[in-house]
């Protein structure tokens, strides 16, 4: 009998399903344990890919929890592309609705950081602009200037101390997180992405600049809590500005 790829896939993803008839051992018996090789290969390879993608989530929830959660995730959200380096795009939304993780409400935002770092790692290369140009501009001209932002650059805002939590789980000497809202800027100077602490106004400013707004508009949009010098220094020192025009 014919085993369609739909039959094969459904049985492969459901360990309790019967092995499709038509898949045989050499002696013509139903190939139960042999079919389990595929079940196992798929579950292990997707679970491994998620471990690679979300090392900090794994640290926060522990190995056992992570493996169990990955088993649920990979069946609800199998990859939709062969580019495994981007597998896990649905993890933030999944975690937000995953009942057993409810006591850790910051997990979705940490997952967003980890996805952002991977996107930055594979983002297009960009040549940094010379920041000296900005200093030479008169105030009016400066406000009308636009900054082109490198493809690797991303911002994230959160109600939780996501920068502090991320650092506490990746750096030996990081301080203990304090409950507060934090925002992060992801950059990639060279080949290795990095994250930096900014505030929500800083994130708004960078987003406006990346959207092609002038510096003046970006400053207005960001509001009074913007630390303009801090944000500009960070962007320029991290090679995050590729053109000033």
């Amino acid at each position: 009998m014919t085993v369609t790829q739909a039959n094969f896939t459904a049985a492969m993803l459901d360990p309790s399903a019967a092995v499709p008839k038509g898949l045989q051992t050499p002696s013509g018996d139903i190939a139960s344990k042999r079919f389990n090789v595929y079940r196992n290969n798929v579950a292990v390879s997707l679970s491994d890919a998620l471990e690679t993608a979300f090392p900090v989530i794994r640290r926060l929830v522990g190995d056992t929890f992570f493996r169990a959660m990955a088993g649920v995730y990979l069946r609800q959200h199998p990859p939709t592309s062969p580019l495994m380096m981007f597998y896990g795009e649905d993890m933030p939304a999944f975690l937000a609705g995953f009942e057993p993780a409810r006591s850790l409400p910051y997990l979705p935002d940490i997952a967003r950081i980890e996805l952002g770092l991977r996107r930055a790692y594979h983002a297009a290369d960009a040549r940094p602009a010379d920041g000296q140009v900005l200093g030479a501009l008169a105030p009016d001209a400066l406000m009308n200037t636009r900054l082109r932002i490198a493809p690797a650059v991303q911002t994230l805002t959160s109600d939780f101390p996501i920068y502090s939590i991320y650092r506490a789980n990746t750096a030996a000497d990081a301080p203990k997180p304090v409950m507060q809202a934090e925002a992060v800027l992801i950059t990639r100077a060279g080949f290795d992405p990095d994250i930096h602490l900014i505030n929500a106004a800083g994130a708004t400013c960078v987003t406006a600049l990346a959207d092609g707004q002038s510096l003046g508009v970006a400053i207005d949009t960001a509001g009074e809590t913007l630390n303009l010098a801090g944000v500009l220094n960070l962007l320029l020192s991290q090679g995050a500005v590729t053109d000033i025009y």
Partner: protein
Amino acid sequence: MGTNSLYPFTKRGQTMLDSARLSSLPPRPGAGYKPQHYSDIMADPDPVGWLEIHAENYMGDGGRPIAQLRHLAERFPISVHGVGLSIGGEGDLDPEHLARLKHLVGWLNPASFSEHLAWSTHDAHFFNDLLPLPYNPATLHRVASHIDQVQDVLGRQMLLENPSSYLAFADSTMSETDFLRELVTRTGCGLLLDVNNVFVSATNLKTSPKTYIDDFPLEAVGEIHLGGHDEDEDETGAPLLIDSHGKAVVDPVWALLDYTLAKSGPKPLLIEWDNDVPAWPVLADETRRAGRALSLVTA
């Protein structure tokens, strides 16, 4: 530019095989490239004559992977080995993925492009594994049309790799070797012969690996793979070998390689080690052993 980047057969029914065009990889040992070996390989490439990469790992927009690949390609012939096209799939090939492949093959101009006789995508979901298909006239027609499409889009000949089998299909009506030979005839593709897969499949399906090699269209082989496998048993206690690419090649597979090379002559010979990847000296030793096997045969 050489003629080797253009596959020679564009129409069905052309059966002449020009073995010089099967790939322009040298008949030397190669290694599956892992980024952790970058510095070692660049410092001392011996005994590696060429490198193989997995296409999907180099489909980002930029960053370190692409930069490393550019540097490697300046020093080594590169084989691009795809794991995500799902050539054996019931559905159409993913046009976006084909376009990404065309882009990669376009800028890199690799010495060879290969994919698998398997499927990995169904209903827009990708399962990251090489899944099996039955061999009969309907699947032959489907796989041949997918290979035609790939070769047309890429503008070059591709090599198709024989899979590791764990089970048999009741509705297979052709042997794997007949199926592959017919694909070569219909599409003008070449073949990538994985000798470890032959050993794994023959053990699991209780057939003879040497008979498989005897029946294989060796004149169409543009590359040979060697890798390690895991050993298990099925519920009846019969051996169940699993293609894991996670350890050294076992002696019976080296012996099967010698048997193959004696019939085929020297071929580009790759060591695949994708899981539990060892330090470079271990992989280099394995590659050296492949070099010794090649030195025993003459062209």
